[in-house]
């Protein structure tokens, strides 16, 4: 076993994790579409293999404070683009989250998807490829490519296998996100041009983060990145794509959307916005925290009025991701909020993923998502009831389940940064209980009066297989989050420390080559040589 771990630690793990689903997808293209059974299981085993391999990430090097498993190959040297990937404490759990949810979403589709199965599983695997890539890319062009390539499979997943107004939802999703990405692309090019003004132009994140742009330039670049990430998260006024996309997407699509896609925004903020534009981040933090609080309160209030089960859960993401945003931008005095935000991203992925899977289960049986169509399911589907209960409570943020850990840390951090906003956000905890419990009552409690509900089947083995791991994770993170926190904390601390040091003016901006060199030296002075610089 040790030998295997050793071997895996030396292998280009991240590349394997990224490209294995891609290879799987390519192989599926060669398979006979009529033999859907074979395709399903092949896709499933590919994703399981990816997940298992990704677990070796944990075994390898010591600590994730800095980037580890770094791979860098020249790609387009003429314009300073390289294939540069690596993982640290911030991205590690997100990578594992996406590799973990991929097999689950594949498994959940086995009976739900009946048409064009071959293409469906190809696209799911492609999603896995693009999602993992987004979280490990350390080159802005590479990041942008992965970031954008997530859209294509998702667009098709919603557009082909969605329900109701799927074309509208898919188009809206893509156009909305692309608008943000467009500005981000401009800013990425801007960074390149800037870096070209005192040295060889580059898109390399590691280089750029030690050559910080002057504040006035930062502001504009920050705003461009902000738009892209805020749409993805989504933050308050940019959230309307989410409800439609989540609602109309097939179950697996919703799961990946809510659980992983939204995290790309949050991750982008921590990784790129904060690190590359520290001054602008400090400047913008109160405003973004304000927007985050609005998201929390507004999202919860809007949720309370929904009649569509899936739409309700989708909109609850607005509130929950509001917490994440609040935590990310509460970095001024303490990193607790940002650690909380990072773990909350993972928690929310698990919880909301599970909620969407659960809605998928009932949708598959009843082909409706109207809350009014249900009622009294508790007596018909006891197992389903129990799993839903735990998941719902995790989403409410009940202590000892995963939601609490993140929310508590976020609110603690946010309260330090701004007691008024922190206090308001805390009220969101009350509102979350209002809409989720009401929804739960309307679906499960009361007499089961509708004849079509009375003979619903309880969870089958396959459904239990993909739901139980999620429930176990909820309990694990809720009861013993130490393994997660101990990985996240050093990396977040390091990132926040760098941001605050630059923003407080103790590091020169890299305006000229000479100053850039000093800045580099200063930023990296705390890092051991050859660490990740």
């Amino acid at each position: 076993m040790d030998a295997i771990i050793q071997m895996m630690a030396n292998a280009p793990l991240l590349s394997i994790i990224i490209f294995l689903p891609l290879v799987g997808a390519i192989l599926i293209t060669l398979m006979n579409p009529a033999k859907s059974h074979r395709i399903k299981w092949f896709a499933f085993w590919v994703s399981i293999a990816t997940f298992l391999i990704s677990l070796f990430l944990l075994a390898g090097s010591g600590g994730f404070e800095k980037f580890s498993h770094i791979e860098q190959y020249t790609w387009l040297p003429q314009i300073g683009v390289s294939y540069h990937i690596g993982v640290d404490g911030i991205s590690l759990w997100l990578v594992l989250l996406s590799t973990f949810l991929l097999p689950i979403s594949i498994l959940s589709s086995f009976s739900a998807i009946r048409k064009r199965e071959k293409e469906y599983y190809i696209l799911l695997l492609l999603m896995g490829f693009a999602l993992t890539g987004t979280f490990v890319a350390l080159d802005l062009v590479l990041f942008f490519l992965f970031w954008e390539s997530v859209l294509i499979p998702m667009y098709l997943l919603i557009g082909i296998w969605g329900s109701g107004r799927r074309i509208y939802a898919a188009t809206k999703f893509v156009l909305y996100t692309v608008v943000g990405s467009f500005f981000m692309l401009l800013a990425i090019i801007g960074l390149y041009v800037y870096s070209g003004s005192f040295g060889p132009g580059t898109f390399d994140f590691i280089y750029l983060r030690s050559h910080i742009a002057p504040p006035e330039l930062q502001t504009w670049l920050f705003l461009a990145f902000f738009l892209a990430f805020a749409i993805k998260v989504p933050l308050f006024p940019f959230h309307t794509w989410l409800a439609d996309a989540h609602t109309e997407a097939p179950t697996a699509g919703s799961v990946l959307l809510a659980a992983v896609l939204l995290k790309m925004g949050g991750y982008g903020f921590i990784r790129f916005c904060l690190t590359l534009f520290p001054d602008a981040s400090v400047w913008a933090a109160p405003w973004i925290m304000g927007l985050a609080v609005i998201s929390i309160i507004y999202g919860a209030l809007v949720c309370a009025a929904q009649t569509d089960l899936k739409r309700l859960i989708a909109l609850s993401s607005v509130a929950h991701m509001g917490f994440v945003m609040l935590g990310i931008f509460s970095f001024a005095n303490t990193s607790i909020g940002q650690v909380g935000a990072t773990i909350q991203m993972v928690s929310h992925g698990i919880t909301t993923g599970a909620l969407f899977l659960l809605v998928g289960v009932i949708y598959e049986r009843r082909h409706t998502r109207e809350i009014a169509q249900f009622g009294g399911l508790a007596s018909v589907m006891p197992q389903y009831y129990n799993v839903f209960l735990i998941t719902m409570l995790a989403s409410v943020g009940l202590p000892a389940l995963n939601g609490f850990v993140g929310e508590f840390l976020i609110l603690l951090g946010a309260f330090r940064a701004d007691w008024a906003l922190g206090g308001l956000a805390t009220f969101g905890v009350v509102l979350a209980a209002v809409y989720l419990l009401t929804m739960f009552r309307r679906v499960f409690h009361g007499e089961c009066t509708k004849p079509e509900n009375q003979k619903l089947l309880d969870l089958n083995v396959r459904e239990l297989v993909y739901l139980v791991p999620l429930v176990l994770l909820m309990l694990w993170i809720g009861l013993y989050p130490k393994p997660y926190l101990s990985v996240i904390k050093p990396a977040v601390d390091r990132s926040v420390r760098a941001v605050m040091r630059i923003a407080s003016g103790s590091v020169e901006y890299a305006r000229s080559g000479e100053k850039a060199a000093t800045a580099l030296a200063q930023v990296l002075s705390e890092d051991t040589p050859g660490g990740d610089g």
Partner: protein
Amino acid sequence: MDYIYLAIALPLLGVLVNGFFGRRMPRKAVGTIASLVILGSFVVSLVAFLGYLAAEGGTHTVTLLPWLSLPPLEISYGFLVDGLSLVMALTVSFVSFLIHVYSMGYMADDDGYPRYFTYLNLFVAMMLTLVLADNLVLMFVGWEGVGLCSYLLIGFWYKKAAPPVAGIKAFIVNRIGDFAFLIGMFLIFWLYGTFSFTELRQSVETVALAGHFPLTLIALFLFGGAIGKSAQFPLYVWLPDAMEGPTPVSALIHAATMVTAGVYMVSRMSFLYSMTEVAMLVVACVGAFTAIFAASIALVQNDIKRVLAYSTISQLGYMFLAAGVGAYWIAIFHLFTHAFFKALLFLASGSVIHGMRGEMDMRKMGGLAKYMPHTYWHFLIGAMSISGIPLLAGFFSKDQILFAAFTARPDIWPNAGMVLWIVGVVTALFTAFYMFRQIYLVFLTKPRFDVAEIHPHEAPASMIAPNWVLAIGSVVAGFIGLPALFAGIIHIPNMFQPFVASAVAGGVHVAEAAHGAQELFKEVLTTSISVVVALLGLGLAFYLYQVRYGTTEKLKKAFAAPYRVLLNKYYVDEFYDNTFVQPGRVLCEQLSRVVDLGVIDGVVNSIAFVIGAVGQVLRPIQTGFIRNYAWYISAGAILLVILLWLGLAAK
């Protein structure tokens, strides 16, 4: 006692066993396992208690594992063993055990038998977490955990319409309190940098920020949590509705244990409260007001459990009154005695409901003493105890609360103590009246139902036995914390006070037990007045419902308006509904429809529409004729050349 965590682990084990295998096991086994694990908890607590006594004040913490560890934030699974937590743990596990046993009889025919015991075990585990936690956050886990169990158990009969709604109401109202509690926690952390009770006490006492505004703020926010959990005004509204749950649940959660968590919390944080007069006064006033407010509602209610629910609210008000005047140990003492007699009253009422086939309206009862003698005695003992009939448990604890209020800090709050005392005495009068009104209406007056049809019958042994234990407790529990007056007379020292006082911030503001002659006089005076008042209430009930049965109808007519207000519980529920719930609902719907779909999505879609419209305008240019396109291409090429040329020329 380093194995104190077993007290929590055992019920959790019960949860796992019953939760996973309960439906496949025989009912007897489920109930037995559930009860046994609670008995185990009790034994563990008892052993811890004995060990504590043997070590003479061996306050210590047991730390198992780190939970949230992000320096400077350190939260671990740590349990604090001291007088306060041991008293609570013993009370909780003992009463819980009895109620588990009772439930085996009461719920015997219910479909959700295993589910019931799973929830109940979970509740005990959470309650013990709450009282044993050595830091605020772990306490909050228990705090929310019991709230969850309360939600689940209130809504236990989910097929009916009302219980789930009541469950949600309980959970949400509690969460409003928790919101304040959380903010209090945040303030504490950022002021003192720790959540641990022991460290917190040290820093609060050494930093000495007495009267400091943030300190008051913290105390008030934490008290906000207590208001929610312990059903004080204005967040008490969930508790009467919580009676939709099974009666043993009402006894355990909504009378004996969970609702007292707020009192426990205030006592646990007494070191902090003692530093701030304002917060103390607020606590005392809220407590006193709630006490009389709820008692007045209880005067006219007709539902057998609702009377008890309002009575619980009122008694909790007493406890806060005690805590507010600094008599923390008395608050805990009353909590302790109240756990016995209120659980007894609820379980007895459960037996009545059981024997009356689910009837809860007292107007349709009467004369049940003949059919269920045991239950009658149980109820009578409970009522006497709560009314403060001398020498029963409730008498001692309530008397001391009133005395504490009477003597409370005349230097700081001139006359406040007197006002609080008068409120307390009036409440005592109300209490005696409504309890004996209930006795008369249920057990003594003529039956107002069809005896032949309903066949009232006594409860089975498994339900009677625990009640007798509780009844004995309701009689004798007071003797371990005798007031100085009685301690002096019958030579039984007050064991309770020193035991608990070591854990709470005693001494600072507490009116110490009387020593001087003047103090003794005061105590005799207040005690006599309490006794007189209790007997007065009893007598009034006797007069109205026994001697002149039927007078009440005339009174109702004579005081129609006040009667209606009381019967409708001061219209508080309606007020909340009209002020918060309905506008909130409208707000949500409007937000969703008008703002979200209308304005925000409208803007997005308008942008898309404008782009589409521009496309429509430009569309005719795309004629589809190649020669047009060729023309465009040529023109474009020429234009490009011209532009390049101009550009070159400019350079």
